[in-house]
């Protein structure tokens, strides 16, 4: 039980990667606050799985791109738990379109959820971490931020922003016992990838030197490592878990 009674918030925590991260923390004894924005169905199925692992969890329905919702959500957690040790900024959306067809709405939404959401959640939690001189902030970025990808100018910009944000915030927090890192997952078999057609899937597989998609647990392992005591001297880093993709 490496994370016994550690208090963790995971944004976008009821599906895909976020869910795998949440369940991994719960298995290690952590208290988990799972944020989601709208999908009540997957929230209740994740809740059912969590119930088998722990009693210490909270479901947090909030749009991370709204400052007032984020403040309300974090205050709700702090009222119940007093403090938070670990924040995983995982919530993200995609609205893939070639730039020529990419309207403002799809640009804004992706930047607001992915990048602004990371800023808002980090900002809302930072005081409680400073007060205890301990904290772990782990952001989720993407290979798209590093290598670029056609149809993802909005998404890659948001994820690139997260890399720069991670580096700057790590400098602000380093002396205060708070580490800030990012995990860059390659192509992971989540419903988003599973639902692609066979041809696209085999194209993607051909790009990965290891010849297979990653598992959500591969990413969760890295997140848990960065959150652990063992990673106490690592900050401002982008750790890629992608089977050799980048």
């Amino acid at each position, binding site marked *: 039980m490496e994370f016994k009674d550690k208090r963790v918030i995971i944004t976008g925590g009821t599906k895909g990667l976020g869910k795998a991260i949440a369940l991994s923390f719960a298995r290690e004894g952590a208290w988990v606050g799972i944020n989601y924005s709208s999908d009540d169905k997957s929230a209740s199925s994740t809740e059912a799985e969590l119930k088998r692992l722990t009693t210490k969890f909270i479901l947090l329905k909030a749009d991370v791109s709204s400052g007032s919702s984020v403040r309300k959500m974090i205050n709700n957690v702090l009222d119940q738990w007093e403090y938070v040790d670990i924040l995983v900024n995982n919530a993200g959306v995609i609205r893939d379109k070639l730039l020529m067809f990419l309207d403002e709405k799809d640009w804004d939404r992706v930047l607001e959820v992915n990048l602004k959401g990371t800023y808002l959640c980090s900002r809302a939690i930072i*005081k409680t971490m400073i*007060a205890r001189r301990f904290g772990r902030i782990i952001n989720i970025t993407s290979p798209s931020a590093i290598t670029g990808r056609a149809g993802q100018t909005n998404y890659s910009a948001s994820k690139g922003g997260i890399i720069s944000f991670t580096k700057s915030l790590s400098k602000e927090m380093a002396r*205060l016992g708070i580490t800030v890192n990012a995990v860059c997952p390659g192509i992971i078999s989540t419903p988003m990838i599973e639902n692609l057609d066979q041809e696209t899937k085999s194209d993607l597989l051909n790009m990965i030197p290891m010849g297979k998609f990653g598992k959500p647990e591969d990413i969760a392992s890295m997140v848990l490592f960065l959150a652990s005591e063992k990673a106490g001297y690592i900050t401002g880093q982008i750790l890629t878990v992608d089977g050799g993709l980048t």
Partner: protein
Amino acid sequence: MKKNKRNNELEEIVNNSEAMCEFLKKMIIETLKLENVTVGEIDSYVPLFRKGLGLDSIDALELVVAIEKIFNVIIEDEEVGKTAFASVDALSNFIQKKYKQG
């Protein structure tokens, strides 16, 4: 709850400028773990930052959090912080004013 007793003690300190400066100096030393600095060595009118006491903006973050926790006084932005952290005396005045408003 012990919070009430604490509030009474705090009230007394806040109402007395001298006690307040003393308290803040202790708070600064403890919060920032300043070794080799004693309360007596900190001049109430010397700037806290740079060539004064030598603090920087990251130290200020810790002080902002400590002040909010102890006095429930929020320093909401850097501009306010600049005035509030000009010196121990300035900080004392700032907190006294805000504490009474709040």
